[in-house]
């Protein structure tokens, strides 16, 4: 059936005889199903490596900076941050948008590439989805604590309260509450559904190894999965639908984040290009982070057969494409500021590039517009160290993008007498620095206790998984 199309190819294809290009292998060295299971499970079953403990303790130490920063903030008041009129949104919102944006690559890989049948997504999607969830956790810290009196943060949700007043649903900030909480929830659900068959593998392996406790824990979450094809049928449909709803979700989340700015009247924020520009930037930064995380993981666990050069190539090319879109958006913002002939808008952009914060602007341009252009070259994409270094530049650049957008516009508002210059306080720096620790702690726990690659999905894209292969054109 699947091969019927070979015979029925349009006449024109027979005439031009398209060259037979070999398809890139998704699993190198013709690995067997059992090899894949063994490889992925051995990461969890083996003894905890020393480097893991070193990283984990270091990550806990870094994470304590966030705990300390937030504790001091809650005990003292939001004034311990460097915010002052006119800059009342600064690192808190910059960090929030930065972390949320990082999450977007995970959903892009798991949902959009699934719908586009990009099979290379399989070996990186589990870790990328984990990255999404942990990035959302880090992101959520900032808006929750920047409300000041954090014990009233529940006012953000439509829960009846003693004032008998409801949330204002005309506000993009309220939309954001729903967008981010839905995003976090659906990401966890999607991740969990993908994990079920692999948890069943671990359940059976730990059971046979005599570790009844771990078998019971994995088994509890595996829901009694038994690989039934009647189950797979519903499972695959559910997975496809989840991918289908996650796609508009991921596009809407950063769109709504951009509404926080675009719906205001501030020059530099009030632009219609923001939603697509933010989404492209989010995917760009997310792929930067995926590369930053996956390349060391690939080297440490010797996963070169599963995360091949082809995978790295694909990720670099997406980074290049989205980075170029971001560069285009920077240019278009300037063009519209000039073409719109609004003096305030024009000033906002001249001020960005040549004002007090020009240093931040040029770091942003350097990291986001120039860095990805190196990925045009195969030599660069094949140099893992260089790719990793460039991915760090992407992360740095995208943080500066949010800083430039948020702070430059606020620091120079309509009334020159209220102009100011914002610098972060040490508490903000601590809190932000610590989130990298929070993220790393969560990610290290993930690679220690959960399969970092979806075994079932990788097996399904190997050549030997094709039940039609080698049997000619028989009729099923």
């Amino acid at each position, binding site marked *: 059936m699947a091969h019927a199309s070979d015979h029925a190819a349009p006449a024109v294809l027979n005439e031009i005889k398209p060259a037979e290009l070999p398809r890139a292998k998704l699993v190198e060295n013709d690995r067997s199903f059992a090899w894949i*299971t063994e490889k992925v499970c051995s990461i969890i079953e083996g003894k905890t490596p020393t480097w893991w403990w070193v990283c984990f303790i270091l990550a806990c130490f870094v994470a304590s900076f966030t705990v300390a920063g937030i504790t001091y903030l809650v005990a003292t008041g939001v004034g311990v941050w460097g915010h002052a009129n006119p800059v009342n949104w600064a690192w808190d919102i910059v960090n929030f948008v930065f972390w949320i944006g990082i999450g977007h690559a995970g959903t892009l890989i798991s949902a959009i590439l699934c719908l586009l049948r990009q099979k290379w997504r399989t070996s990186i999607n589990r870790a990328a989805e984990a990255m999404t969830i942990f990035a959302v956790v880090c992101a959520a810290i900032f808006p929750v604590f920047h409300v000041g009196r954090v014990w009233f943060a529940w006012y953000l949700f*439509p829960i009846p309260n003693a004032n008998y007043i409801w949330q204002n649903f005309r506000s993009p900030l309220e*939309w954001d509450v729903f967008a981010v909480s839905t995003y976090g929830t659906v990401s966890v659900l999607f991740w969990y559904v993908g994990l079920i*068959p692999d948890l069943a593998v671990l359940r059976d392996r730990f059971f046979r190894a005599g570790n009844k406790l771990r078998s019971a824990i994995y088994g509890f979450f595996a829901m*009694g999965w038994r690989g039934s*094809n009647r189950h797979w049928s519903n499972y695959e449909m559910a997975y496809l639908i989840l991918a289908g709803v996650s796609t508009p979700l991921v596009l809407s989340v950063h769109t709504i984040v951009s509404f926080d700015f675009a719906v205001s009247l501030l020059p530099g924020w009030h632009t219609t290009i923001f939603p697509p520009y933010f989404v492209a930037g989010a995917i760009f930064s997310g792929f930067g982070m995926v590369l930053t995380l996956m390349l060391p993981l690939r080297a440490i666990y010797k996963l070169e057969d599963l995360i091949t050069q082809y995978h790295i190539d694909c990720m670099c090319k997406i980074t290049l494409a989205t980075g170029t879109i971001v560069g285009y958006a920077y240019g278009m913002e300037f063009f519209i500021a000039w073409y719109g002939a609004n003096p305030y808008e024009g000033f906002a952009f001249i001020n960005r590039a040549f004002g007090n914060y020009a240093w931040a602007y040029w770091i942003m341009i350097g990291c986001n517009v120039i860095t990805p252009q190196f990925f045009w070259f195969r030599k660069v994409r094949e140099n893992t160290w260089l790719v990793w270094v460039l991915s760090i530049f992407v992360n740095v650049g995208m943080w500066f993008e949010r800083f430039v957008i948020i702070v430059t516009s606020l620091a120079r508002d309509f009334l020159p007498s209220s102009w100011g210059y914002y610098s972060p306080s040490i508490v903000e720096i601590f809190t932000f620095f610590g989130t990298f620790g929070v993220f790393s702690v969560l990610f290290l726990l993930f690679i220690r206790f959960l399969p970092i690659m979806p075994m*079932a999905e990788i097996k*399904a894209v190997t050549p030997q998984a094709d039940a039609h292969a080698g049997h000619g054109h028989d009729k*099923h």
Partner: protein
Amino acid sequence: MAAQPYGLIATFDTPADVMHAAEKVRDAGYKSWDCITPFPIHGLDKAMGVKRSIVPRFSLAGGLIGFTTGMSMIWFMNSYDYPLIVGGKPFFSPLFAFPVSYELTILFTAFATIGGMFFLNRLPMHYHPVLKYDQIHRGMDDQFFIVIDSRDPKFNPTATRALLEKAGGKAITELEA
């Protein structure tokens, strides 16, 4: 008296083998049987005669409920229960209610899809005769099984075993109930 077995399980080594065997079991008219595979095999649903999944119906219901919940919640809160005056704008408009309703559509669809999948698969089910088979871990790893339920009207210990043997099944074993 020995209890009636749950059924018979046969082992296959490749996806193609299990698929061809599944076609034979399907054509022999069995209804209550299953394949155990470590990953979804393309084309096996057809070989087994499994109909298209009805999970999308749950998803559609979830999505509709989500959207309606969003719209009616915002209308109730900002227009009916406590009309909120903001900049002289209308108390309710589907436009400003749209982003939140859109997110709730997705949220409810996701829950309904997963809930529907678990419901249709009768999961969680931590005890199942198939899971007691001592080689079942291979079915999560690199082997493929066909299980035929003894409650199937066509089930007959000898004839069913012969069918599985003829279809290429190895290590045919009775599963205790």
